[in-house]
């Protein structure tokens, strides 16, 4: 009877649409990676690297990332609160408005309507749409939590609520602009102020959209998949407060050595290093939850995705603070090392957790057993190998280029011209494009597997039979 109680329709729709936008994000990513090695692949004015790259990043963050957040949060909130969604109608509106917003973003970016601010390129009318969308989502989640039938709030709900508030504050503040027309506006802040506000936004968008939500998913789907509770709920609470407090100080580590005042840079550097503690609080909590359960890494594909995902998070949150230190930033910033770092987080951490979440959800919301576990394992290896090739090629490239930029002759002149350092990048960019293709193949396997599950999967008599997620 539980089945009729929860709204799974909306979860199904958001899963499907988030995958659609995920494919767009990866496909455009592959295209721009080839444009970097072969400039002839730019077709002016619309299909050039400069216009496509924001579509890649925004489709990835807002289409795939936020799409999965919508799908999983709307599921998790109902289960953890043991009650149906507060408003089905609002959720339905949210679904269609979400797709309208993403389509409007893609079209306007292609036409060149952009603010140029990274991960916030969309012009002001789309900012308005995003705000409406987020409010609809937040109201529904918060009201569902308020009317919950389970007194205790599990840690996933904490992270969800922080994310709702955080994204709202960040997005609104960074949207402030003076409109010239429907498609053009100028930032309300100028120069150094604009830079500081923007990277406060951009770094914390990573915190509130690409860290807190995947943590909420991880904390929910890991125990659900293994069948044993997380190691420590109290540790997750300490990590929670530390994380959301410290993250907001660190935006300026993207601006080391720029004209932003030194004291802001120093604070950003210090807090970035301190952030290792709450980040690894969650990583350890995940690992320790596996005590006595490590055999499930072999037996349960969901656990494999989740634990490798949290491992990527651990690596990401060690590498990030390292890059936030002035001396290391001086060497590595502006090189290909940086995209390598970002993609370890997005392709590794966020997407691994998202794939696991979707694999967990599909049998439950469609009532069908997964079509093929071997295919899920194949996808796991394709995306793991694809991502590692992607990042390692560019880490090497970044160190190489940084070394060449800094190389000097005994007489104090530069050893290499800029072009000489760029030409050295081509082989690595080719390898990176190859890594992207392998990753894309993994996504195609994923979609095929899900499609076959929905079409041909054995029907599941009751969701309870799958409670442990060991299909």
């Amino acid at each position, binding site marked *: 009877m539980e089945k009729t109680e929860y709204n799974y329709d909306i979860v199904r729709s958001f899963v499907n649409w988030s995958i659609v936008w995920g494919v767009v994000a990866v496909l455009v990513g592959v295209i721009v990676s080839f444009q970097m090695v072969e400039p002839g692949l730019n077709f002016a004015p619309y299909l050039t690297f400069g216009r496509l790259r924001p579509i890649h990043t925004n489709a990835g963050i807002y289409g795939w990332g936020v799409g999965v957040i919508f799908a999983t949060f709307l599921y998790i909130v109902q289960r953890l609160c043991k009650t149906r969604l507060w408003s089905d109608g609002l959720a339905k509106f949210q679904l269609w408005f979400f797709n309208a917003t993403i389509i409007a973003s893609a079209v306007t970016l292609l036409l060149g309507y952009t603010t140029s601010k990274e991960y916030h390129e969309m012009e002001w009318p789309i900012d308005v749409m995003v705000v409406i969308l987020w409010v609809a989502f937040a109201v529904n989640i918060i009201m569902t939590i308020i009317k919950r039938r*389970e007194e205790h709030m599990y840690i996933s709900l904490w992270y969800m609520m922080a994310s709702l508030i955080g994204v709202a504050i960040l997005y609104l503040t960074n949207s402030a602009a003076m409109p010239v027309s429907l498609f053009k506006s100028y930032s309300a802040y100028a120069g150094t102020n604009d830079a500081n506000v923007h990277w406060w936004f951009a770094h914390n968008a990573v915190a509130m959209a690409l860290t807190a939500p995947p943590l909420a998913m991880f904390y929910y789907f890991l125990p659900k998949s293994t069948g044993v509770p997380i190691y420590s709920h109290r540790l997750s609470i300490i990590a929670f*407060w530390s994380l959301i407090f410290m993250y907001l100080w660190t935006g300026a580590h993207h601006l080391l050595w720029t004209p932003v005042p030194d004291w802001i840079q120093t604070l950003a550097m210090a807090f970035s290093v301190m952030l290792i503690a709450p980040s690894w609080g969650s990583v350890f909590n995940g690992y320790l939850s596996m005590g006595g359960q490590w055999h499930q890494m072999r037996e349960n594909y969901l656990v494999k995705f989740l634990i490798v995902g949290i491992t990527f998070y651990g690596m990401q949150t060690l590498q990030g603070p390292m890059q936030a230190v002035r001396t290391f930033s001086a060497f590595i910033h502006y090189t290909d090392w940086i995209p390598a770092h970002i993609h370890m987080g997005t392709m590794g951490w966020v997407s691994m957790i998202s794939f696991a979440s979707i694999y967990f959800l599909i049998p439950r919301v469609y009532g069908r057993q997964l079509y093929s576990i071997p295919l899920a394992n194949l996808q796991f290896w394709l995306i793991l190998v694809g991502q590692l090739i992607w990042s390692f090629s560019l880490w090497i490239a970044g160190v190489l280029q940084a070394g060449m930029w800094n190389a000097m002759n005994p007489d104090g002149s530069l050893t290499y011209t800029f072009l000489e350092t760029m030409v050295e990048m081509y082989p690595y960019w080719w390898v990176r494009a190859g890594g992207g293709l392998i990753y894309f193949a993994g996504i195609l396997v994923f979609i095929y597997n899900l499609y076959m599950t929905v079409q041909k999967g054995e029907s599941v008599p009751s969701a*309870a039979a799958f409670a442990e997620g060991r299909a």
Partner: protein
Amino acid sequence: MDLASILYLGVTIGLFAVFALIVIRTYSKKRKERGEIAKYRMLDDD
């Protein structure tokens, strides 16, 4: 030490105190059961 340094030091110590209080509160014996119950409850929502 000038006023600003004392102020900075005060804020820093204050923050550490808040952190210590959160840890002490969360890990107090009194709250052990209440603090951990949610992780068991979430498993029987199916």
